C-alpha cells in the first residue's frame, strides 16, 4: 500500500516537474503537447521508481542492497510483488475492470445506434466513445489471457518456481496503470477520435487527447514486449527435468508463439506511434502528404504489428480452449504435434499478411495478390487447430461443466469468425465490404468470440485453482447461454447491415437499416447485462464458494498436482516429468513425479524420462 501511494505521488510530481521544466525552457502554455510528452515520460519514471524499481534495481545500480518488503495477504496484490501468481491475479483483476469499462462504452455506442439520426451523442462525441471502446478492448484482448493465465500458469505448467525475470515481470504489470490513466485522462485535452487505429492524417491534426493515446499505447507496447520476452525466456530456460518440448502442455506452446509475435512486431506499433508523436510535437512531416510525407507509411507500419496482434489475442485463446477441451473430454489432445506446428506457423505467417487491411487504401495493385494469398494461407493452420478441438471431443467422455460449455461455444464462434474472414481476405469481396459493419461483425466474432470466450473458458476452468473455491456450475451455464444467445442476436444482424451498406465508425445510417440496428442494440444491452451475472458469480464464488480441493477436474497437468491456490514457490519438491501431459485413457500413464521434500527430503524421484530430457539441456 505504501509503495502504491508513493508511486502515485512520485508519478504526479514527475509529471509536474517534466511539464513545468519544459514549459520554462520553451515558453508557450503548460497544456502544450510537448509539455505533456515530457511530463508523461518523467511521470512514468517517477511512478516506476515509486512502485518498487527504486527499492530494487536502482539501489543495486548504486551498489546498495535491494530493499525487501514483507507483505502478506491481500495487500500483496496492491504492491510490487515479484510472485508470478500475484502478478497473474493483478492482470486478471485489472483487465476484467478494463473489460467492463470498454463494455460500458459499447453500450453507449449501441444506444446511439439504436435509431437513425443524432441521438444522445453528436458525431464528434460518437467518434470519441467509439475510439475509447476500441482501444480499451484491444488492450484487453492483447493482454488479458497472456498477462493473467500466461503469468499464472506457464511457470507452474513447466515445473518452474517463477518466471525467469520476476522483477521485470512486476514492472511489466505496473506499466499498465499509467496506460489506463493516460487513456482515461485524454478527455482533459480533448478526447482522441481517430479510432484505435489512429490513422493519420486525422491523428496528426486532431485534439490533444491523441498525444495521450500515443503515449499510453506506446507504454502498453513496452509492457507487452517485456512480457513476451519474459515468457519466452521462462519456457526456454526453466523447464523442469524431463519437460521436453514435446511434453509441454499446449497452453505453454500457445503462450510461446504469441509471445514471439508480441516480442518482435510490437516495435512496429511503437515506431508508428512515435512517428505520430514526432509529427505532432517535433514538426516532422512523415505523414503529412502536403510536405512530401506518406500517410500510407503509417498503415504499413501499424498493420505490421496490428495484424499479428490479433494472433497475440487468439493464440493464447487457442491454448486455453484446447487445454480445457482435452481435460474435460478425458482424451489426449488430438494431433498434438500438428497443433504445435500450426501455432508456430500462424506466428510466422502473421507477419506477411498485414496489407490485407489496405486493399482499398490505394497501395500498389501488385501487392493485392500476394497479400490475399498469404492471408488465406493462415486458414490452413487455423483449420488444423479447429479440427483438433473438434476431434478431441469426438467420442470423448464429455464432462459438461461450465468451462467445457464455453469451450464448445468458442468452437462455434470461431468458426463463424473464420469463415466470414475469408470474404475479407479476398480482394474482390473486400473492396465492397471494407469499412462496413460486416467487418465489425467479423472481428467481434473472432476477437470477442475467439479471445473473450476463451478468456471466460479459462476463468471458469482455473478459478478453482486460483482461488481454491468452486464456481456455481448452474449459474455458470446460465451465464454461458445468456451471453451466447445475446451475442448472436447482437452481431448476426451486423453482417446483414454491412452487406446492405452500413459504414462502421459513423454515428448515423440510412433509415431503412433501423430495424436490424434496433435489434442489435437491444441484444447488446442484454449481452451487457449478462456481465453483471458474471461479476456476481465470480464474487460469490470467491467469498463463499465450496472448497475446490487440489484437483477438482481430476486433470493431469502440473498446476493441478499442487494445492489450490499453489504454495509460494509452486512445488515443495522438484517435479520430474516422465510422460505426455494428456495421457488420458492410457493405463499407467503419468505426467510428473515429485521428489517429496516434506517426507524427510530423502525420497528420490524415479529417473524415468530424464534420458529424453537430456537433449535440450
Amino acid at each position: 500500500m505504501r509503495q502504491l501511494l508513493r508511486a502515485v505521488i512520485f508519478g504526479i510530481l514527475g509529471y509536474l516537474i517534466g511539464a513545468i521544466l519544459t514549459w520554462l525552457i520553451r515558453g508557450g502554455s503548460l497544456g502544450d503537447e510537448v509539455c505533456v510528452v515530457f511530463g508523461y515520460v518523467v511521470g512514468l519514471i517517477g511512478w516506476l521508481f515509486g512502485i518498487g524499481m527504486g527499492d530494487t534495481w536502482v539501489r543495486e545500480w548504486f551498489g546498495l542492497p535491494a530493499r525487501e518488503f514483507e507483505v502478506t495477504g491481500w495487500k500483496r496484490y496492491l504492491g510490487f510483488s515479484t510472485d508470478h501468481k500475484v502478478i497473474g491475479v493483478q492482470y486478471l483483476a485489472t483487465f476484467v475492470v478494463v473489460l467492463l469499462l470498454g463494455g460500458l462504452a459499447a453500450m453507449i455506442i449501441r444506444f446511439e445506434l439504436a435509431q437513425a439520426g443524432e441521438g444522445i451523442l453528436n458525431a464528434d462525441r460518437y467518434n470519441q466513445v467509439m475510439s475509447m471502446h476500441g482501444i480499451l478492448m484491444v488492450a484487453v484482448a492483447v493482454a488479458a489471457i497472456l498477462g493473467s493465465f500466461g503469468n499464472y500458469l506457464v511457470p507452474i505448467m513447466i515445473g518452474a518456481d517463477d518466471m525467469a525475470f520476476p522483477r521485470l515481470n512486476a514492472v511489466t504489470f505496473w506499466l499498465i496503470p499509467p496506460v489506463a490513466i493516460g487513456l482515461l485522462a485524454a478527455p482533459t485535452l480533448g478526447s482522441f477520435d481517430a479510432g484505435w487505429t489512429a490513422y493519420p492524417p486525422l491523428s496528426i491534426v486532431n485534439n490533444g487527447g491523441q498525444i495521450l493515446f500515443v503515449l499510453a499505447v506506446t507504454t502498453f507496447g513496452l509492457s507487452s514486449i517485456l512480457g513476451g520476452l519474459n515468457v519466452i525466456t521462462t519456457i526456454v530456460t526453466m523447464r523442469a527435468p524431463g519437460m521436453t518440448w514435446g511434453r509441454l502442455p499446449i497452453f505453454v506452446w500457445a503462450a510461446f508463439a504469441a509471445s514471439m509475435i508480441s516480442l518482435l512486431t510490437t516495435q512496429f506499433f511503437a515506431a508508428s506511434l512515435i512517428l505520430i508523436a514526432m509529427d505532432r510535437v517535433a514538426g516532422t512531416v512523415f505523414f503529412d502528404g502536403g510536405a512530401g510525407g506518406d500517410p500510407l507509411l503509417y498503415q504499413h507500419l501499424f498493420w505490421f504489428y496490428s495484424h499479428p496482434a490479433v494472433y497475440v489475442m487468439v493464440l493464447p485463446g487457442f491454448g486455453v480452449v484446447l487445454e480445457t477441451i482435452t481435460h474435460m473430454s478425458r482424451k489426449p489432445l488430438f494431433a498434438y504435434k500438428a497443433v504445435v506446428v500450426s501455432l508456430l506457423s500462424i506466428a510466422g505467417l502473421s507477419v506477411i499478411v498485414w496489407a490485407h487491411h489496405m486493399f482499398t487504401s490505394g497501395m500498389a495493385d501488385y501487392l493485392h495478390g500476394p497479400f490475399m494469398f498469404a492471408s488465406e494461407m493462415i486458414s490452413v493452420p487455423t483449420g488444423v487447430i479447429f479440427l483438433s478441438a473438434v476431434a478431441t471431443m469426438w467420442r470423448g467422455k464429455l464432462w459438461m461443466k461450465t468451462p467445457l460449455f464455453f469451450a464448445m461455444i468458442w468452437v462455434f464462434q470461431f468458426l463463424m469468425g473464420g469463415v466470414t474472414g475469408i470474404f475479407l481476405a479476398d480482394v474482390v469481396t473486400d473492396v465492397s465490404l471494407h469499412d462496413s459493419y460486416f467487418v465489425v461483425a467479423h472481428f467481434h466474432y473472432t476477437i470477442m468470440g475467439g479471445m473473450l470466450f476463451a478468456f471466460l473458458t479459462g476463468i471458469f476452468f482455473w478459478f478453482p485453482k486460483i482461488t481454491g473455491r468452486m464456481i456455481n456450475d448452474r449459474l455458470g451455464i446460465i451465464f454461458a447461454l445468456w451471453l451466447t444467445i445475446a451475442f448472436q442476436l447482437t452481431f448476426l444482424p451486423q453482417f446483414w447491415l454491412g452487406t446492405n451498406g452500413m459504414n462502421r465508425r459513423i454515428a448515423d445510417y440510412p433509415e431503412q437499416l433501423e430495424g436490424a440496428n434496433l435489434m442489435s442494440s437491444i441484444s447488446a444491452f442484454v449481452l451487457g447485462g449478462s456481465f453483471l451475472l458474471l461479476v456476481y458469480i465470480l464474487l460469490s464464488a470467491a467469498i463463499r464458494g465450496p472448497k475446490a480441493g487440489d484437483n477438482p477436474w481430476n486433470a493431469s497437468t502440473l498446476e493441478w498436482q499442487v494445492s489450490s491456490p499453489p504454495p509460494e514457490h509452486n512445488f515443495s519438491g522438484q517435479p520430474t516429468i516422465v510422460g505426455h501431459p494428456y495421457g488420458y485413457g492410457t493405463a499407467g500413464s503419468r505426467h510428473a513425479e515429485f521428489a517429496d521434500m516434506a517426507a524427510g527430503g530423502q525420497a528420490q524421484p524415479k529417473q524415468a524420462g530424464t534420458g529424453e530430457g537430456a537433449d535440450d539441456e
Partner: protein
Amino acid sequence: MAMTTTPEAGHSQAEATYRPAANRLGLWLFLASETFLFAAFISSRFVVSGTEQPEHLNQGLALLLTLLLLWSSISAFRAEAAMAHDNRRLFQREMLTTIVLGLLFLVGVGIEFNEALTDFPANSIYGSAFFMLIGLHAFHVLTGILALGVVWNLGRLGHYGSDNHWPVEGVVKYWHFVDLMWVAIYPTLYLFGGS
C-alpha cells in the same frame, strides 16, 4: 535493458543452473526486438524519402562519428575481457575510454543536429528521417552510456570478478548492438543514393 544490468533476486537452488542461460537469452531477445524498432525506422526513411540526399551533408563529421563508435566497441570489448581475467585496473581504464568516446559521439551528434537545422529542417522530408533516425540512435547511445557508467562504478567498487561479471557482459553486448545499429544507419543516411 534494466534486466541486463542486474541479476534477478534469487528464489531457489535451481536458480544457479538456469540464471546464466536466462540472462543471455533475455538479452538476445531484447536485442532482437530492438532490431525490429530500428528496422521500422530505417525502412520508413526509404519509404518517405527514397535514397534522396541533401547537398550539405557533413560527410567528414559522420565518418569521424563512425570511427569514434567503432573504437568504443573495441575498448568495450577490452574492458569485458579485462574483467574476465580479473584485471580490474585495465577494466576501469577501458570502460572510461568507452564512456568518453560515447560522450564525444553525443557531442558530435549535437554539432551535426545544429548544422542540419539550417540545411534541412525537420519539416523537410529528408530532415524528418534524419532527425528521427539519428535521434533514436543517440537516445540508445545515451542509455548505453548510463548503463556503462553504472557498471564501471560497480566494477570499481569491486562487485564483479572473473566468475561473476554478467552485468559487464550484458552492457557491453548492448553497446556492441548500438554500434551495429549505427553501422546500418550511417549508410542509410549518408552513403546510399546521393545527388
